[in-house]
C-alpha cells in the first residue's frame, strides 16, 4: 500500500466498470480478500463502450477527485467492439482535461478481465495513490441557489 496510511482522508474516486470483465475483476479481488483502498465508488455499466466521456467530466466537475474507467481487454469485449470505440473516445477526451485546468492524471482508463483479481488490486491501489498524491480536486462553482442542497440531510436553509 504505497503512500496510503490509515489516517489519510478518503478522496472521492468514481469508477466506471464494464459488467462483463472489470466488474468481475473487482469482484474477484473482493472475493479473494485482496486489500484495496476504499476511495473508489464503482458504477457498473454494460460495457466500456457505454462510457460517455461526459460521465467523466460531469463527475470531475461535480466534486470527484479522480475517475477510473475499466473494461474488457481489447479483443475480449463481450459486445465484440465496444472497448475499441471506447479506447478512441477516452484517449481523445484525455486531451481536454489539462486545458480546463484539471490535472490529466485525475483520469485513467484501463482493461481488467474478470479473472485478474491481482491486476484489479494493483490498478485501484496505484490509481488511488496517484489521486492522493494530487490531493483533493478543485471543482467549478455550482449555482448559489443550490448551495443549501449541500448542507446535508434535514436542514432547511434559505
Amino acid at each position, binding site marked *: 500500500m504505497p503512500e496510503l496510511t490509515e489516517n489519510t482522508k478518503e478522496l472521492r474516486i468514481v469508477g466506471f466498470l464494464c459488467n462483463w470483465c472489470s466488474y468481475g475483476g473487482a469482484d474477484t479481488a473482493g472475493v479473494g480478500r485482496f486489500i484495496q483502498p476504499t476511495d473508489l465508488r464503482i458504477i457498473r455499466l454494460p460495457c466500456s463502450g457505454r462510457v460517455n466521456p461526459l460521465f467523466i467530466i460531469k463527475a470531475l466537475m461535480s466534486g470527484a477527485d479522480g475517475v477510473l474507467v475499466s473494461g474488457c481487454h481489447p479483443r475480449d469485449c463481450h459486445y465484440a467492439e465496444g472497448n475499441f470505440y471506447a479506447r478512441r473516445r477516452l484517449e481523445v477526451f484525455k486531451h481536454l482535461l489539462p486545458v480546463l485546468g484539471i490535472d490529466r492524471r485525475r483520469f485513467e482508463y484501463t482493461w481488467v478481465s474478470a479473472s485478474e483479481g491481482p491486476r484489479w488490486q494493483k490498478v485501484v491501489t496505484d490509481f488511488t495513490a496517484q489521486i492522493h498524491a494530487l490531493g483533493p480536486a478543485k471543482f*467549478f462553482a455550482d449555482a448559489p441557489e443550490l448551495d443549501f442542497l449541500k448542507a446535508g440531510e434535514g436542514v432547511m436553509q434559505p
Partner: protein
Amino acid sequence: MAIHEQLKKIILDTLPGVECVIGWGPGQDALHGSPVFMRKPEDVDSFMDTPLGAFGAVNNLALFLPELSGKKVGVVVKGCDSRSIVQLVAEKLIKREEVVIIGFPCEGAADLTKIEKALPEGREAGEVTGAAIVGETLKLSLGSEEISLGLADIKADKCTRCKTPGAVISDAFAGIAGKAPEVRDEYADLAALEAMSLDERFKFWEREMSRCIRCYACRNACPLCVCRDHCVAGSRSPHWITQTDSTRDKLMFQIIHATHLAGRCTGCGECQRACPAGIPVLLLKRTFNRGVAEIFGYDAGMDTEATPPLLTFQVEEAHIKEREWQ
C-alpha cells in the same frame, strides 16, 4: 470581371434550378454582412453589396443546409465553409446532390472583434459610420474621424492558418483557385493557454464562462451541431445541466458541445464569433482537433469519403499508448 460580379453571374445561372441560393448581403452597418437567401433574380443585386465585399463574407452559410434538406439549394462558400459541407456530406447529414456549391478564391474574412480591438481606447465597432477597402487597408469613418487598419491585422485567426483558400468541393467556381498554401496549424492559441498553470487555466475558464448568458448562439451557429431542436442541453432526462446561472453548468455545456464535435469540427470558428459574450469557446474544440490530428492524423472536412475517427477503430491502434500498471 471582379470576383463578386462573376459570383453574381453564377448565382443567376444557378437560381432556376434551385429553391434559393444562400450568399452574403448587407448587414446592419458598414462592417456587417448578413446571410441573404436569394430566391429571385432581383435578390442577387444585394449579393456582396457591402463596403467590405468578400472580406465581409463572414457567416458560414453551410449552417443552413441541414434545415433545408429535401430541397435543392445553392450556397456560396469560402474554403473553410466548404469544409463544413464536406463533413456534413461525409456524415450523411445532407445529400451532396441537393447542394449546388459555389466557390471563390477567398483572401480571408474580417474578425469584428479584432476590428474593435484595433480602434482607439474606448471606441467600439458600433460607432463605425462608414468603411471602404483600399488596397490592403480598411478605411473606417467614426463620425468625422478617419481610421485605417491593415487587412492582415483584422483577418480572422482561422484565415492565418487556412489550408483551403479555394473550395474543397464545388460545382461552380468564380475565378481561379489559388494554390493551397503550405501552412501548419501550430495551435498558438492553445499554446498561450497552456503557458498558464493548471490553476490559472481553471480560473481563466471560471472568469470567461461567468459571462455566458446561456443563449446557445454557439450551438446554433455551428454547422455541425445538427441535433438543433433536440439538444441534450434542453433535456431534463438525462439531466446534464440545470437551468441555473452557474459557471459549472455553463462550462458543462461547452464541454458537451466540444465533445460532440470531437473528430468532426472543421474549426470554422462560428461558435466563437457568434458568442455575444466574447467567450473563446473555440479553444475547447481546437483542443480536440489537435488531439484527433495527433492520434489519427485526421482533419475534418477534407474528404467526403473519410470516416470520422471516432466512428471507427483499429484493433491495433498505432498511436494510442496505454498506461502500464505493472
